[in-house]
């Protein structure tokens, strides 16, 4: 009897302890998640303040970063018109007009729709392009090669992988920035007819690949920009020493602006495997990686969906920064979505 009550007490204590420990953790995680979700995020990445006016001569350099401008930063921009003009001469500025584009290809109809969607993108702006395909989806890889070679682009995937040193990678990166694309493989989150019970397991498998992939695809480019940023102040020779000192004394805000000018997006249109990529990005935001470093999540629901979202759409609706639908009825039901007409 005594033994039984001891066991009971221990079990009760363990239960209470686990509740006491897990509740704050769960709360903290929930709060982090809330702050990571686009609709609750204070910085409102997707609602760019378009009312910010910039001097004409710097508009082109900083327009791509204007999404994060608050009023005090605007003042800095105004007073630094000249400095920015000088920076504009520098080669890295060209990069701020570019957007690292990660494209998820879901196979079959999803791939066809996605390639149709991106066919209008200006490849000089949306580069480098990283395609993420299912591990056994050879048809999509074939379609990517056909699609890109029609625009005289090179596949630099193998170049990327075989290189081990940072210097070699840098060269490959540059090649990718010039005219190239890379293809990356990811395990599927859910196979056709797979039971819902085992789906979390395969999702974890996808996540194990997705997290380092997202980190590699987006952060690598950012590091490159930061590297360029760091070298900027010393390079423009025509700057006066006064300007230079003023730049270095309060350089961090304006540099941050410039560095954050490099955008990245993740384009998805289903099916479920893209959830792993989106979760990797949301996870990055949850651990406090700034908005500028994580790609904007863009989801485009299939044209075939008229009144109801696909499973992938339902899952990604709360996570996406931009959610596009192709039928007005869906726009009515999902107010955060955008409807701009038939896209495919």
């Amino acid at each position, binding site marked *: 009897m005594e033994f039984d009550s001891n066991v009971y007490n221990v079990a009760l204590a363990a239960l209470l302890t686990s509740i006491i420990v897990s509740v704050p953790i769960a709360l903290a995680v929930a709060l982090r998640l809330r702050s990571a979700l686009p609709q609750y995020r204070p910085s409102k990445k997707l609602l760019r303040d378009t009312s910010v006016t910039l001097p004409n001569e710097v508009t082109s350099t900083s*327009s791509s970063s204007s999404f994060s401008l608050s009023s005090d930063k605007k003042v800095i921009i105004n007073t630094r018109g000249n400095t920015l003009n000088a920076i504009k001469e520098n080669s890295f500025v060209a990069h701020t007009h570019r*957007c690292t584009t990660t494209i998820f290809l879901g196979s079959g109809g999803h791939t066809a729709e996605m390639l149709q*969607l991106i066919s209008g993108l200006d490849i000089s702006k949306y580069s480098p392009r990283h395609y993420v395909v299912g591990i056994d989806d050879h048809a999509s890889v074939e379609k990517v090669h056909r699609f890109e070679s029609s625009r005289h682009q090179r596949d630099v995937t193998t170049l990327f992988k075989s290189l081990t040193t940072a210097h070699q990678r840098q060269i490959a990166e540059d090649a990718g920035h010039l005219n190239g694309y890379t293809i990356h493989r990811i395990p599927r989150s859910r196979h056709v007819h797979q039971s819902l019970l085992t789906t979390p397991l395969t999702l974890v498998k996808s996540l194990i690949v997705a997290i380092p992939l997202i980190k590699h695809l987006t952060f690598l480019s950012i590091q490159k920009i930061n590297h360029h940023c760091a070298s900027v102040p010393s390079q423009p020779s025509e700057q006066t020493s006064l300007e230079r000192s003023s730049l270095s004394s309060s350089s961090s805000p304006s540099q941050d602006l410039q560095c954050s000018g490099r955008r990245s997006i993740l384009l998805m249109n289903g099916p479920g495997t893209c959830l792993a990529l989106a979760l990797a990005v949301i996870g990055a935001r949850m651990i406090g990686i700034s908005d500028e470093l994580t790609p904007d999540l863009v989801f485009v629901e299939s044209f075939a969906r008229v009144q109801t979202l696909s499973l992938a759409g339902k899952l990604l609706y709360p996570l996406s920064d931009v959610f596009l639908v192709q039928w007005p009825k869906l726009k009515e039901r999902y107010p955060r979505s955008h409807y701009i007409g038939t896209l*495919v």
Partner: protein
Amino acid sequence: MSTHRSIFVTVGTTRFDKLVNAISSPDLLQLMHDLGFTHLSLQHGNSIVPTLFLPTIDNSEATTTATVTTIVKVESMQIEVYKYKASLHDDMINADLIISHAGAGSILEALRLQKKLIVVVNEDLMDNHQQELGSALHEQGYLVYCNVFRDLGKALRDKGYESLVPFPAPNAKLFADFLDEHLGFN
């Protein structure tokens, strides 16, 4: 006869016995003939092929192989029957009228080719969203939509497929402009 007018019937990878049966009925074949069609291609996928369309010799072998095409002549219509092809694109291009299941892929492919299209819904499949696409496009006049397979004869007779609205070509600029705007690339 010098005029060559063909109908292409496709069920994709689905099983759609009712449509295949309806197509093979003498009434419907006669109707197609009366409407001036001379050729019929039937891609039956996993549906059961009516005996009418089976080749007289080597029955079993011909129908089990996906690539084998059977050609029969019924009601003075030249009829080509096959299970599946690597690409249905050529058959779509050659067709004057396409009768399709409600699959989004088939619908879009036919509309992109600016073909006259009759979509027949498979009530045995409870996949609602496909039916939604067919009826939504029907509301805009891009295709003829039959709810029950018995309506197919009526849909053919009414010649609603002659006066469809042309499906607009994809506008890739729409999405590109939207993204440019979002990213501030202007």
